[in-house]
C-alpha cells in the first residue's frame, strides 16, 4: 500500500478521532468527575505539575457515582423512556405522512419531480428556530389554527395545543419529514413499473399490488427514513422546549436543564453518555441496512 492510499484512508479516521472520539473521551471524563464550585464546575482536573503521583490521584478521584445517581432518581429513566416513546411514535407518524408524499412524488410526471423535490427541501433554507417559532404562532391559544377552527365552527372554545405532547409530535413530524420522504422516494423512483404491471397481470388489484410489491420493495428506504428520523428525534431538545409543556419529558430537555440550570456538568455528561449508548444500537442497525442495500444493488 503506497503512502497516498494510506493518507486517503487516514483522513476519515483522523476525522472520527478528532470530532467523535476526543470529545467523547472528554465528556466521559466529566461524567466520571464530581460537581464542584469552580471553573470549570467539576473536579478533579488534571495537573501535569505533580507528575506521576498527580496522575494516580486524578484517576483515584474518578468514579461512577453520577451513573449510579441516574438510576436512583426516577426522573432520568422516565425521561429516557418518554423520549423513546415520543421518538417512536413521531417516527411512525412521519412514516404515515411521508410515505404517501414519496409515493405521490415518484408517480408524478417526470418534469414535475425536481420541482416537488425542491418543495420538500425548501423549508431547510430558513432557520429551524424560526420555523419552530412559527409553529408556536400557529398552535397558540389565539393562534392561526384555533382561529380557523373557531371560524369554521368545529369548536366553541380554543383548544390547548401549544405546550402539549401533541405540539411536540407536530414539530417533530414537520421538521424531520424530508428525512423520511427522500430515502423512500429514492427507492420508489427506482421501482420498475413493469413489476406492478406483472402483479396486476397475475391477479392483483391496485391495493394488493401496493402491499405485495411496492411496500416490500421500498423497505430499505422505509428503514433508512425511520432511522434518520428516530435517531435525532430521540435526543431532540429545541422542539420539546419550545412546543412542549412542563409535562413533556424528553432527555434532551433534561440534559439542557442539568447543564445550564443546575450547572451540574458531571450528571449532564453522564446523561449524554447513556443517551449515546442507547443511540448506538439503532445507528449500528442503520449502518447494517445501508450496507445490505449496497450489497443488493451491487
Amino acid at each position, binding site marked *: 500500500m503506497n503512502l497516498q492510499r494510506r493518507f486517503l484512508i487516514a483522513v476519515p479516521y483522523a476525522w472520527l478521532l478528532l470530532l467523535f472520539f476526543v470529545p467523547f473521551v472528554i465528556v466521559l471524563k466529566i461524567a466520571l468527575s464530581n460537581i464542584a464550585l469552580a471553573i470549570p464546575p467539576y473536579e478533579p482536573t488534571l495537573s501535569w505539575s505533580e507528575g506521576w503521583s498527580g496522575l494516580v490521584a486524578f484517576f483515584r478521584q474518578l468514579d461512577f457515582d453520577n451513573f449510579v445517581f441516574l438510576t436512583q432518581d426516577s426522573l432520568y429513566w422516565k425521561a429516557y423512556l418518554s423520549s423513546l416513546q415520543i421518538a417512536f411514535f413521531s417516527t411512525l407518524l412521519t412514516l404515515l405522512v411521508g410515505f404517501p408524499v414519496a409515493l405521490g412524488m415518484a408517480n408524478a410526471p417526470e418534469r414535475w419531480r425536481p420541482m416537488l423535490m425542491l418543495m420538500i427541501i425548501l423549508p431547510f433554507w430558513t432557520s429551524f428556530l424560526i420555523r419552530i417559532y412559527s409553529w408556536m404562532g400557529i398552535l397558540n391559544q389565539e393562534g392561526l389554527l384555533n382561529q380557523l377552527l373557531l371560524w369554521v365552527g368545529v369548536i366553541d372554545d380554543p383548544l390547548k395545543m401549544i405546550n402539549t405532547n401533541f405540539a411536540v409530535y407536530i414539530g417533530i413530524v414537520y421538521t424531520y419529514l424530508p428525512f423520511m420522504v427522500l430515502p423512500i422516494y429514492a427507492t420508489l423512483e427506482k421501482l*420498475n413499473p413493469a413489476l406492478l404491471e406483472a402483479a396486476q*397481470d*397475475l*391477479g*392483483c388489484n391496485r391495493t394488493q399490488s401496493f402491499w405485495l410489491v411496492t411496500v416490500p420493495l421500498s423497505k430499505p428506504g422505509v428503514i433508512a427514513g425511520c432511522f434518520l428520523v428516530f435517531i435525532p428525534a430521540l435526543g431532540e431538545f429545541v422542539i420539546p422546549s419550545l412546543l412542549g409543556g412542563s409535562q413533556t419529558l424528553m432527555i434532551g430537555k433534561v440534559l439542557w436543564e442539568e447543564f445550564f440550570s443546575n450547572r451540574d456538568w458531571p450528571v449532564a455528561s453522564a446523561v449524554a453518555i447513556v443517551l449515546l449508548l442507547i443511540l448506538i444500537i439503532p445507528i449500528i442497525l442503520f449502518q447494517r441496512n445501508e450496507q445490505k442495500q449496497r450489497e443488493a444493488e451491487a
Partner: protein
Amino acid sequence: METQTASGDTLAPWEDATAKPLISFRDVSKRFGGFTAVEALNLSIYKGEFFALLGPSGCGKTTLMRMLAGFEAPTTGSILLDGVDIAKVPPHKRAVNMMFQSYALFPHLTVAENIAFGLKRTAMAKADITARVEEMLKLVQLENFAARKPHQISGGQQQRVALARALARAPKLLLLDEPLAALDKKLRQETQFELVDIQEKTGTTFVIVTHDQEEAMTVATRIAVMDHGRLVQVDSPDRIYENPNSVYVADFIGDVNILRGRGRTRTDGKVEIVWADGQPGLVGTSDEPLDNAECALAIRPEKIAISSTRPVQDANALQGAVHDIAYLGNTSTYHVRLPNGQILKAQETNSRRISKRKYTWEEEVWLSWSETAGVVLTR
C-alpha cells in the same frame, strides 16, 4: 430457417370459416396523442395457435400485446376474447397472462414464490398451489432452483421462471413479449424449441412478439408481419416465405432479390416482366392479371442456379460477373453483378468438401431460375 413445428397435422382453424376465434380484433386503432401506434387492425387468433407478431422495432407489437393484457385500451374498435368484448375487464380479471420483455420477476421473492404469486390470488387451496408450483418448476426444469432469488440465477433461468409464472394460472392466452431477446444466440435457439414443446404440452394459445424473423419461422403456426401499426400479411410461415404479398414482407423475411420493372400477363397466365434495357424479359407468376403495371419480381437466392454455360431449360437466365463470394460453411452465396450494375444473390449448397471453389471473382457466370421460382409483387 424453414424448420416447421411438429404440430403441423394440418391444423389450420383460420382456413375453417365456421371456427370461432379465441381473439378477434375489430377495427382496432391505438393513438398516443397525435401518434398512431396501431391502425384499423382486424385479426383473429384461434385456440391452440402459436401466433407470432413480427415487425421492426416501433411498429406497434408491444402496444398490441398490452391491449390484449389490458394495460392499454384501444382508442377505437374492440377486442373480443371468446366472443366477449374485454374493453371493460381490468388486467387482473383477464384470463390472459403475459411474459414481460424484461421478465419483471419480483426481486424480493424466490423462484417458487414468484411462480406461486398468481396462484395465491385465486381461491386455490394451499396444497394445490404447492403442487402446481412443483409441476411448473418441473416443466421448465428448475426444480433445484426453487429457493433461489431471481438475481441468483442466470438470464436463461430467469426467462424460464417468467414463463412458468405466466403459465401457472393456466391462462386461455399467453402473451410473450420478445421472450428470448435477452438470451445469446445458441441458448435462444434451444429455448425456441422448448417453447414449442411447452406450448404443445400445455395446449395454451401463445402470442409471441419478436423482431427476429428466424424465431417467428421456427416457433409459429402463423405469422403476422407488421409495419407502422398495420398488418401487412398474416399467414403460415411457409406461405409468408414462399408467397409474400408485398416487397416489404419478402424483404423482411429472409434474403431476397428484388427486380423491378413492368409486367404484363401473357395468354398462358404467366407474367412477363420488362425490367432493364438490353436485358431479356423475366417470367414469373402472379395471382392477379397485370397490364403493363409496375411490379417487382422477388426471387430467393437459394432458388437461383448458377452455371458457367447458358442453361437450356430454365425460363429465366441472366449473365453477370461474380462480384463477391460469401462462404458460410454449409452454403456459399455468390453476389453476381449484372451488366446494369444490379447485384443478384445466388446461393449454392456446399454438399461436398471442396478445396477449390467452382467460380471465382470476376468470372462470367449464368444465373437461372424457373417460371414458378419467383413471385411477382405489385406492392
